[in-house]
């Protein structure tokens, strides 16, 4: 991964933004701005709306009020974000490499090649294995490899370190740091400590439970 700016200057700005599910407001009156090269960590107990916030930013769930925008992004370029949720979207009957190649084609093969991405996440030896045989942690690594095969400035990560071992935690830190170096934005919901080499690039947003 080269350390240079590859994305245009981007800012994700949310103003007076509320999100929730099923008619229930979970996160209320949020205002934040994340600029390129910075990471926003979402923290808070279970059920405070971290995942919902990420789904809303991904455009899957409609915001309840307020709005958000990725400023500086050209709408003609297609989607600008990668969403990496709880479910890994892996087809058990396809090989590890086939799984990744599908997304490289669908999302645009603008990043590193699928084989290189598998090497990066530590699945290089398993590329021909049926993905159904992967362990939970390995499946997670395959899901993370998807972020690398297509360049997109905004990463929305929901518990990226779930099921990963210590080395996996280091891998997530490395991936996020590499993405920030290139001017990308990361918004991650996590319960684990993610310690990035540049603490000044990290903002934290703590969500609280509504009483």
């Amino acid at each position: 991964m080269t350390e240079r700016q590859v994305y245009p200057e981007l800012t994700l700005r949310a103003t007076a933004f509320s999100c929730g599910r099923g008619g229930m407001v979970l996160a209320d009156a949020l205002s934040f701005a994340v600029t390129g090269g910075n990471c926003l960590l979402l923290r808070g107990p279970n059920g405070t709306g971290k995942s919902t916030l990420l789904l809303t930013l991904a455009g899957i769930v409609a915001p309840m009020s307020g709005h958000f925008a990725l400023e500086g992004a050209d709408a003609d370029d297609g989607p600008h974000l990668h969403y990496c949720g709880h479910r890994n979207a892996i087809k058990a009957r396809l090989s590890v490499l086939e799984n990744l190649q599908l997304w490289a084609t669908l999302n645009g093969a603008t990043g590193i090649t699928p084989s290189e991405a598998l090497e990066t996440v530590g699945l290089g030896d398993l590329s021909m294995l049926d993905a159904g045989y992967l362990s939970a942690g390995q499946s997670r690594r395959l899901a993370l490899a998807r972020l690398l095969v297509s360049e997109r400035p905004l990463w929305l990560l929901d518990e990226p370190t779930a099921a990963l071992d210590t080395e996996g935690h280091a891998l997530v830190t490395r991936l996020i740091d590499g993405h920030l170096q290139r001017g990308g934005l990361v918004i991650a919901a996590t319960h684990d400590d993610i310690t990035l080499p540049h603490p000044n690039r990290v903002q934290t947003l703590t969500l609280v439970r509504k009483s």
Partner: protein
Amino acid sequence: MKPFSTIIAHELRLALRGGGDMLTLVLFFVIVGAIVPFAVGPDKALLARIAPGIVWISAFLAMLLGLDRLFHADHEDGTLILLRQSELPLSAIVAAKVMAHWLVTALPLILASPVLAMLLAMDLETFLRTLMSLLLGTPALAAFGAIGAAVTVAIRRGGLIAPILIAPLSIPVLIFGVGTITATQSNAAMLFLAALSLMAVALAPFAAALAISSAED
């Protein structure tokens, strides 16, 4: 065009590796058709007359049975959410999936229809017309099915609700499908059937994509 054909290839590969699903549908199609003569009784003339209807009902039921595989697995494993962030619009993705669905469910039925024709004592001319009507009509069934499957995608065991939802939609397909084989104005019926399929295939992806987008909300 590459992502579009990639999705079709991907779906075909999944279906072929799945193995059993396709064969199950074909066997279901043949067995439903083969059971009817037992219920109707040993009347060859009657059987020959209702054979087109039997073939269409069997094909219809078999296609309903296959609906569940269209979006359900993709919803369960999170693929649908990611598909919405791909370069291709969701409606195009749905269109590709419907085409692949037709290839793995309807086409095997059509290929197996000679077996049913033989069991039902169809003459050659009727059989050729049946083949034609199935080729023209099953795309509409697949497209309507996609709408039903998309609307019920977020519902647990939605696979059972989708057939009930789309059965009324499919009535015109059955009318003109059987009409193509038996009616006196069979050419007109055939044109109607083709028009119905074209319309359904053109519009269903948009409706299904809309249903999928609102399903998560």
